[in-house]
C-alpha cells in the first residue's frame, strides 16, 4: 500500500501524441515492468486503472514506474479531463499496491531469462536502442511473436495509435533489427 498519499506530488506532461498525457507521480505505481489496459474487465483487481478507464472518453491507461499515461479518443478537453484524472489518482492511490499482479488469470510475469534465446536477444536490442525513446514519450513496445522472419509487436501507452509509431518508428526498428539480428526480418505492428 502507498503511504503519504496526502503529500503526493503530481505533475502532467504532454506527449507528442495530442490524445495522450503523462501524469508523473512522486511515488511508484508499478514497481516492476509496465502494463497497458484498455478494458475495465482486464484490470478489475486494480481500482486505480478501472476508475481511470471509466472516465468519459478515456481509451487506454499505461502504468510504468511512477508514470501513468492516459490516452483519450480526442473528444474530451484536457483541462477538464486532467483534473478528473488527478482526482481519481488521489482517491484511489491510498489503496493502490504498486506490486499488483498484471492480470488475474496469470498473476506472474514470465521472467525474461525463461524466454527463448532469440526473443531475449531481440528484447536486449530493443532495450538498448528504441525503448528509452518510447518510454520518454510515455509509451513502450511489446514483442508478441517471432515466426520465421516475421516479428509481431504491439505498441503500448502513448505510442498506441500514434501515426509516427506506425510508420517512421517501425521502419527504424526494422532497420536496427535487420542490421543486428536478422537481415530478412520483417516487423509487423498490430
Amino acid at each position, binding site marked *: 500500500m502507498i503511504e503519504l498519499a496526502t503529500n503526493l506530488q503530481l505533475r502532467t506532461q504532454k506527449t507528442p501524441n*495530442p490524445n495522450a498525457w503523462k501524469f508523473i507521480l512522486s511515488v511508484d505505481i508499478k514497481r516492476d515492468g509496465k502494463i497497458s489496459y484498455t478494458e475495465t474487465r482486464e484490470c478489475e483487481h486494480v481500482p486505480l486503472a478501472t476508475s481511470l478507464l471509466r472516465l468519459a472518453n478515456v481509451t487506454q491507461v499505461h502504468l510504468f514506474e511512477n508514470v501513468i499515461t492516459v490516452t483519450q479518443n480526442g473528444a474530451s478537453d484536457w483541462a477538464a479531463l486532467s483534473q478528473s484524472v488527478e482526482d481519481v489518482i488521489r482517491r484511489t492511490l491510498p489503496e493502490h499496491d504498486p506490486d499488483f499482479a498484471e492480470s488475474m488469470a496469470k498473476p506472474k510475469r514470465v521472467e525474461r531469462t525463461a524466454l527463448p534465446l532469440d526473443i531475449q536477444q531481440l528484447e536486449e536490442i530493443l532495450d538498448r536502442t528504441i*525503448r528509452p*525513446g518510447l518510454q520518454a514519450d510515455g509509451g513502450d513496445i511489446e514483442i508478441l511473436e517471432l515466426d520465421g522472419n516475421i516479428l509481431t509487436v504491439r505498441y503500448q501507452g502513448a505510442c498506441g495509435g500514434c501515426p*509516427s509509431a506506425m510508420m517512421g*518508428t517501425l521502419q527504424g526498428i526494422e*532497420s*536496427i533489427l535487420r542490421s543486428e539480428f536478422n537481415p530478412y526480418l520483417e516487423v509487423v505492428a498490430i
Partner: protein
Amino acid sequence: MSQLQSVVISTKADGSWQAVHVPSGKTSHGLTKVEAEDSMRELLGMTEEGSFQEPLTSDRFSGLAADIALFLEGQVSEMLALHSGFARLEAFDSGIAHIRLGGGCQGCPSSTMTLLNGVQQQLQERFGEESIVDIVPVL
C-alpha cells in the same frame, strides 16, 4: 551543448555507434559516440550546438499572421522540440496557414498527420476557427 531529444544512442555488436531518432526512425552511424551524434545533428539540420539553422519567419509578417508565426515558433515549436522538431509559418492567406515542419519532423511520414491533428487544433483553440480555416503543409 543542447541534448538531442527523442534520440537514443547505443553501441552495436561490432563496437561502432548508432543514433536513432525514435519518432521518425532516422538512423545515423559513427565509429565513436560523438561521430554518431554529430551525424544525427546533421541529419536533423541542427548546428553543432544543437540549435536549428532555420531562420525565424515571424518578422516577415504583420498583424494576425505575425501572431500565428510567433505562436508556431514559440509554443508549438516547444512541443515539437520534444521530438527535435520545429514549426515555421511560410504564408498566410484568407485563413489558410502554410506551415513547414522541420528538424526531426522533416520528411517524417507522419508529420503531415501531426500538422493536421495537433497543430491545427492548437491554432484554432488559440485564434478561433473563423481565423484559421485550414492549414497546408509546406514540404
